[in-house]
């Protein structure tokens, strides 16, 4: 069964061409399109405006430290159109909560971002803002998540650096054991987040390779359903039913070669990112700190994609149905799952709804490795979800299998 399926697949050159050319083309075109965005980031073209209402020694030191991070172009109190805004409120240097709640700025940012579709101008934060905290970070909703992560990371780093330096100078907290303990704990958290999982600027290929490779892997439904439906239409399955062979064996035999193709698709895209991308002027694909983690992720994503194909092939009565419903479902799942539209620009309910898309979990797992430098342990929950998806799709495929 396997030999036959491999032979059939290898000889179906048009389908193979589609399966490998599509992701290459998508990745190439989108990476080249994003090349300039990347260039802007490298040259610190993301603007961060800082309004300092505190004007203390500490706040000035904080701004200087922030400038040294070189993560963005810092504008102090200018009137340029901003992409991100940091407001240092009065009392920045005196608030004890600053010492123990440096992470509060994350919360405040979320509060601002969730205040509706407000523009940057509408979200101007003044000294009298109702928001708590002494340091407020606001980003334009259109600013990509990765850049916001980057700014937040820089703010954390600068803040910690200032606090530590300041406290070492004054030794004000050394006698208060509870404050010392809280600070130590907060710093550990911040340092762990800041250095343990580097928030690097993703290259265009780090964004496009996983996204479009996943998208293309799910397009395996077209040749897979074509193959199964053709066998049904030509009475081959009917003939096979007069042989001592089970439907599960037929489905597994069908699944395996296409599963291999999905794996090859992904690793071909990796090779493309490594070798062809730089030739075309796109920065080389960086695989993160745990590149081997890509293997289990790809095994799970490929299994989910082929199981989905098996389900579509068995549910569809004709090839026309499969080739209309299948790609439509993949495109919808891709949109929901953040392949085409970044998750963060979606409203809350859509961000929750995204989790019903297997493509969301696939992309999250790859991003965890590429961008957040996650290890196998970090991606395991996501892989578990993908395996559950695979099992559901496969079971539906088995149950709905028809010999004729």
């Amino acid at each position, binding site marked *: 069964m396997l030999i036959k399926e491999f032979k059939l697949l290898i000889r179906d050159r048009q389908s193979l061409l589609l399966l490998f050319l599509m992701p290459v083309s998508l990745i190439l075109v989108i990476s080249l399109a994003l090349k300039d965005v990347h260039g802007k980031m490298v040259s610190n073209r993301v603007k961060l405006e800082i309004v300092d209402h505190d004007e203390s020694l500490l706040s000035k030191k904080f701004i200087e430290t922030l400038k040294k991070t070189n993560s963005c172009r810092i504008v102090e109190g200018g009137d340029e159109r901003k992409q991100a805004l940091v407001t240092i409120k009065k009392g920045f240097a005196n608030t004890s909560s600053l010492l123990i709640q440096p992470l509060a700025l994350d919360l405040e940012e979320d509060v601002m971002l969730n205040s509706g579709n407000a523009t940057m101008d509408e979200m101007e934060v003044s000294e009298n803002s109702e928001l708590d905290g002494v340091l407020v970070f606001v980003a334009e909703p259109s600013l990509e998540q990765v850049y916001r992560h980057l700014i937040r990371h820089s703010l954390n780093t600068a803040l910690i650096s200032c606090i530590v330096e300041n406290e070492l100078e004054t030794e004000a907290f050394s006698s208060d054991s509870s404050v010392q303990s809280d600070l130590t704990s907060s710093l550990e958290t911040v340092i762990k987040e800041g250095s343990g999982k580097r928030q690097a600027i993703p290259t265009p290929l780090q964004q496009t390779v996983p996204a479009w490779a996943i998208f293309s892997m799910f397009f395996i439904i077209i040749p897979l359903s074509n193959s199964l439906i053709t066998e049904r239409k030509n009475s081959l399955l009917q003939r*096979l039913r007069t042989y001592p062979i089970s439907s599960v064996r037929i489905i597994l035999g069908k699944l395996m070669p296409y599963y291999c193709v999905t794996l090859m698709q992904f690793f071909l895209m990796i090779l493309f990112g490594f070798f062809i991308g730089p030739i075309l002027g796109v920065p080389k694909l960086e695989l993160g700190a745990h590149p081997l983690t890509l293997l289990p992720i790809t095994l799970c994503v490929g299994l989910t994609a082929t199981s989905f194909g098996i389900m579509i092939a068995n549910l569809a009565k004709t090839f026309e149905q499969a080739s209309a419903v299948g790609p439509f479902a993949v495109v919808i799942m891709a949109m929901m799952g953040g392949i085409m539209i970044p998750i963060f620009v979606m409203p809350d309910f859509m961000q929750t709804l995204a989790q019903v898309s297997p493509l969301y979990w696939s992309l999250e797992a790859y991003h965890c490795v590429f961008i957040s430098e996650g290890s196998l342990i970090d991606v395991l929950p996501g892989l578990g979800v993908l395996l559950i998806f695979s099992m559901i799709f496969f079971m539906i495929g088995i149950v709905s299998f028809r010999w004729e």
Partner: protein
Amino acid sequence: MKALEAIGLTYSYPGQKDIALKELELSVAQGAFQGILGPNGAGKTTFIRMACSLLQPNKGHIQLFDKDVCRNVVSQLVGYAPQEIALYNHLSAWENLQFFARLRPGGISQFQENMSLLLEKVGLSDVAHKRVSAFSGGMKRRLNLAVALLHSPRLLILDEPMTGVDPQSRNRILQCLKDFHGNGGTILYTSHYLHEVEKICETIAIMDHGKTLVSGTLAEIMGKKKHQLNCSFDKRIEDNLLKDLKSRLNHATIKSNEKSLTVITDEPDSLLKELLPLSHQYQLTLLNYSDNARTLEDRFLELTGHSLRDG
């Protein structure tokens, strides 16, 4: 021992009002070359699918060589060639046979010799390693048959095996079937080609509306009434003349249509003897008269009617 015995088979497709098989009865002797005829929708393919364990009857049962039909029995005893060409187009003839051989217990090694022999028999040895997609319709049909014969089944079930086949391929297929039958194999053969069935099948069953209308040897099916007499007159045939004629020719089947008369009988002379005085009495002039030997097609149309079966 019967090769196939169907008793009271009843089946309705899910969601369909019409009954596909109604208490169908059919018995095929071991070693028989059984033809099954019927118009479209008669239930031939449903019956064949049931014989291959592809469908389970709602009522009744079917046995192959005294064993109730199940997948295991079918896979051992039956060679099935569906109406469609059930082959892999991207594989060669040899690879197709290899694939189907692999699925059988014993694998390729057990069937290696048979594969070569079958390709020789169906005339595809020279193109054994050519892809099926490059084959003509006739070549594909021959390979379709070869696959069904691969494991030397005891019963060969063929659903319209000659569809779209050129005379050369047809001859080769017929020769293969004769060889198989000559070696003691039983064949169940459905076809629309009445002349062909008449020529090659020893026993024939005519089905319609899910029932077996008649079954037996060709002679048994044709009955004694071997003559079909056609007469045409200058005027419309009156009902009274028809009534008188029917009373005088008790054993004949008489049908009239305006000015023409069809009489099926085993005594052609008696018709003229009775008809001529009657036509004179009713002031009709006989314009044409012909005496034709009845064919299976005549009998088929007589049993199943002349209305079209497009549904």
